[in-house]
């Protein structure tokens, strides 16, 4: 039997693995430990392409509990490679001046948590069995907030003196950019668009990135109802500043959008 997760969500009760991960683990549960490991890890020590990393986390925990040192080592090494791949994809050297240091810090935090889970037999790693990449997004956030922002490699979007929130874009630029985003946040669901725009968003200055990110999640810029969450309220700045940041971000991202839209239209 695949042991259920024990961590309790405030809203939904016990956390549950995604259906495909649960099904994958139940299939592996039918074979012995050696076969389980073989089905997860290839001869080169990599996690197999069709194997979810959440299953890898689960099986390391299980091997540790069952005192299966051989499996722990082999699975851990595959996990280590997988974590490095995930971090290189999300924090490439092109994003940060000291990306390697940041990746190292994230790995270190994750390993500390893993060891704590083994020591206490607790629920420390349950999140990583629910959503592996999501868990690392949380770690990235924590580490980047502490040591990342000062080293962000931002794109040189405009000439000197034009970054100021008070400096408005020319009306025609603003209009053209807004028209380009007329499809609204729903266009962000397009995988081709998303895969191209994600890295581009990461090159924006932090203030513009925050505005465009919230806008893409459907948060309005401003609202008359004082109980509505708006970008201006969340970021504690006025509406005009938000619009300026959004428009600057639009302008910077427009080139990428054009390329992706043109490609999608073919």
């Amino acid at each position, binding site marked *: 039997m695949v042991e259920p997760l024990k961590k309790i*969500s*405030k*809203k939904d009760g016990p*956390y549950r693995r995604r259906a495909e991960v649960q099904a994958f683990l139940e299939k592996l549960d039918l074979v012995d430990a050696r076969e389980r490991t073989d089905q997860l890890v290839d001869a080169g*020590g*990599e996690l197999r392409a069709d194997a979810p990393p959440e299953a890898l986390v689960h099986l390391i925990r299980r091997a*540790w509990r069952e005192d299966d040192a051989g499996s*722990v*080592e082999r699975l*851990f*090494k595959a996990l*280590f*490679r997988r974590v*490095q*791949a*995930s971090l*290189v*994809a*999300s924090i490439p050297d092109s994003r940060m001046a000291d990306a390697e240091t940041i990746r190292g810090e994230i*790995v270190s935090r994750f*390993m*500390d948590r*893993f*060891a*704590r889970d*083994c*020591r206490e037999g607790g629920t420390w790693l349950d*999140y990583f069995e*629910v*959503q592996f*990449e*999501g*868990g690392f*997004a*949380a*770690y*990235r*956030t*924590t580490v*980047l*907030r502490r040591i990342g922002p000062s080293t962000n490699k931002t794109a040189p979007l405009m000439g000197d003196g034009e970054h100021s929130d008070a400096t408005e874009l020319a009306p025609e630029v603003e209009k053209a950019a807004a028209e380009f985003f007329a499809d609204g946040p729903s266009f*962000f669901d397009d*995988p081709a668009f*998303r*895969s191209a*725009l*994600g890295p581009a*968003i*990461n090159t924006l200055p932090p203030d513009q*990135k*925050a505005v465009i*990110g*919230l806008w*893409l*999640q*459907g*948060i309005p810029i401003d609202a008359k109802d004082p109980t509505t*969450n708006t970008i201006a309220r*969340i*970021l504690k700045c006025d509406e005009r500043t938000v619009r300026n940041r959004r428009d600057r971000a639009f302008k910077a991202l427009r080139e990428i959008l054009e390329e992706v839209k043109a490609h999608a239209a073919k």
Partner: protein
Amino acid sequence: MPPNDPISSEEVLLAFSVEPKRDRSTLERYLSQYPEHASALVDCSLELLTLPTEISPVWVADSSVEAGWQKFRAQLGAAAEMAVESPFAKLTPSAFKTLAVRLGVNNLLLLRIRDRGIRVASIPGAFLGQLATELGSPLKAVTDYLAGPPCLAPSSAFRAQGKPAAAGQVDFSDAVKTSQLTVDQQKKLLAMEN
């Protein structure tokens, strides 16, 4: 974690990042529940928004993987050692003081023993036997625990700027001489070594 303890930013972000629905309503719910972590939540929502859609294998040097494994193994080893339950763990502060009196030592020396600041091989067998009896634990359990690495007292508070570190271990006789014991106490304890 006690129910009234504020939840850490890391735990809030982890819970947020594994939510099945990543949308405006989820973000707003977390912003409302954890206003003290609003800025971190916004940043995290952006990280989630820009998650790579595909993870390609990257070349990782075998030496790097091996180093990562050795480091993790050391952490697991430490975890296994820490899993040996402390026979002192259930003592209340007053029971701890009473134990010190019954052993003919002061609190300071008993703390150094509890925190494994004394090499177990240098502690006289008679003293270990008496300690095990007073603790109501098997002698082996006590010696296994004391054979672990020196540790920080879990109840200690540290205000230093640097990360606290466990001190090294000393021999029993040195600990007896440097623990502010009375001359009479020192004589009795050192006599146990013969």
